[in-house]
């Protein structure tokens, strides 16, 4: 393997990893606050790609506007899911919330299959992503570095929102101790809605960028990235925003590197992530940056 192609693979890994990171944050935020896996998160990611596809391809909006509307719609969908399906179950046993989440996920996927069909659609990419640049002798397509640049900037904005704003402080407080936060006069329901909006918007951005990288979209495209992103959240330490990002990059880089070094195993690339998950659960279940939680009696 030459240095140039090695560099290209690193770029690929970083760009895939940054997409996993975008998705993983949504999982980790919801898990941190409500304590269950939001299985529908991967499907919101898929919706992000489809909403933008329709805004650009059918309503003929300019690319940037279509994406903004698509991402906003994702945020609305995320808030609606919380309001309609999850809020009534907040005091129910956790298994009920999990089953509901699986139901919501299956609903979105099958509604997608029924309305737009299973056949993949070509995603309209902007010129910016399609241009080919020549860097140190290597031909690099725009997506290869625009995707990580955009997603890393989004991640930085998110870090600012979570660690430097009042809303972010409230979110962190709710995830530490919901009851005490309520007593401090924080409107819990509003914070949770905001969390879902934020997570879903990130998933939407992730979906659009994913579609730029792999421009074939279908209603089931969110399942695997969603599951891998959750694995990334576990690897980084569930509930920890920075951890989710670290986990995302680890999973993305590992996946790309294994395929790059052992091309014969590329059919099994999804199985490696599973192996990483099992290893982490065996060796360090609290994840890289997670705190060990003690259950209170």
């Amino acid at each position: 393997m030459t240095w140039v192609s090695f560099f290209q693979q690193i770029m690929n890994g970083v760009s895939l990893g940054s997409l996993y990171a975008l998705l993983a944050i949504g999982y980790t935020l919801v898990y941190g606050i409500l304590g269950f896996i939001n299985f529908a998160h991967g499907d919101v990611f898929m919706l992000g790609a489809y909403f933008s596809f329709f805004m650009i391809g059918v309503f003929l909006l300019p690319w940037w506007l279509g994406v903004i509307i698509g991402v906003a719609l994702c945020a609305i969908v995320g808030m609606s899911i919380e309001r309609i399906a999850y809020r009534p179950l907040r005091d129910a046993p956790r298994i009920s919330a999990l089953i509901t989440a699986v139901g919501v996920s299956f609903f979105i996927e099958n509604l997608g299959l029924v309305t737009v069909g299973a056949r993949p659609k070509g995603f309209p990419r902007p010129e910016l992503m399609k241009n080919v640049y020549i860097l140190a002798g290597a031909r690099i397509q725009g997506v290869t570095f625009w995707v990580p640049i955009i997603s890393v900037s989004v991640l930085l904005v998110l870090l600012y929102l979570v660690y430097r704003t009042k809303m972010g402080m409230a979110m962190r407080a709710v995830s530490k101790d919901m009851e005490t936060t309520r007593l401090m006069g924080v409107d819990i329901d509003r914070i949770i809605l905001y969390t879902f909006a934020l997570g879903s918007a990130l998933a939407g951005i992730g979906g659009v960028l994913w579609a730029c990288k792999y421009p074939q979209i279908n209603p089931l495209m969110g399942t695997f990235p969603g599951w891998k992103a959750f694995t990334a959240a576990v690897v980084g330490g569930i509930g920890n925003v920075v951890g989710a990002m670290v986990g995302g990059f680890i999973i993305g880089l590992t996946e790309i590197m294994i395929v790059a070094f052992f091309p014969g195993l590329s059919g099994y690339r999804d199985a490696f992530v599973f192996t990483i998950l099992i290893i982490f659960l065996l060796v360090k279940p609290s994840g890289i940056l997670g705190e060990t939680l003690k259950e209170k009696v």
Partner: protein
Amino acid sequence: MGREEKRDLILTLLLFAVLMLGVSLAERYLNTYLIRILNTACIYVVAAVAYNLINGITGQFSLGPNGFMAIGGYTVAILMLPLVQKEQVYFLQPLIWPFNSFSFPSHLFLLALFLGGLAAALAALLIGIPTLRLRGDYLAIATFGFGEIINVLANNFIPLTNGALGIKGIPEYTNLWWTVNWAFWSVFMIKGLVNSSFGRALKAIRENEVAAEAMGVNLFRHKLLSFVLSGFFAGVAGGLFVTLISTVSPSLFTFTMTFNLLIIIVLGGLGSITGSVVTAFIFAFLQEILREVEAPITIGAWTFPGIPGMRMVVFSVLLVVMMIFYRRGLFGDKEISWQLIIDRIKGRNESEK
């Protein structure tokens, strides 16, 4: 054995005799379509009761039954496929040793089913060890991944699974005798287990892990055993399924299968074994009825095109609505017992007087 227990056992054996009589009548008089639905319903019973053991009784959320069913299904298919058929099916790449050198004759079908179940149980053990030691929902995410990984392996490990083409021409050994017997005995066994001290420990874990541990229940060992047993019966159900429809391919045991089972156990009541039995039958028939919804409908001069896939949309809405408004399901965590039936009959007689 107490008087009531003895009575229950006799009634259960009587029920078994009636069922066997029913099967011999059904085999003779029912049409193949109805028999197919009944077979499917019985296989759903085996899989759903096993699934309820880990999800409903033990309270550990697993999403893996499709993976276990796939393992059981492929194991039975590879063991039972005749040698001639093996050469024809594996034309892309030959089947690996030792499976290319032998094939089970029909009288070893039961053994093949057991081996299919054991293979699935082994997989459950391997997933259970890292995940069930931990608190929280790691089992859900690991089993969900596992189901997908099995699909990946089935598609890619061509010398064993024949890839996306799958395996065709598996002898159709499964009939009502097999399915009804497996359904009956798996319910009998799991219900007996649930009523034992082991089963009570499982329920204690579901209600409160910390309290259960304080009472001296070994959480890990109980969860693991429940999960492995659940994997075993799921594997057997997979084996029955592939020998019913005589083919197996990666698309057979997708997440949809797990979802169907989830609907069944939620509808019947998480934690009610007998509830799952009832809803497995309801579901098998409901699925056939809803098939009509997907077919084109002609009313007068208008023809409405059918929407394939609409069933799953209906089922997923049903699941979410039930979780929000009717979480108990039909039976909650109550079981249909002989005592209950006897009380009902007596109660009705008294009110009639």
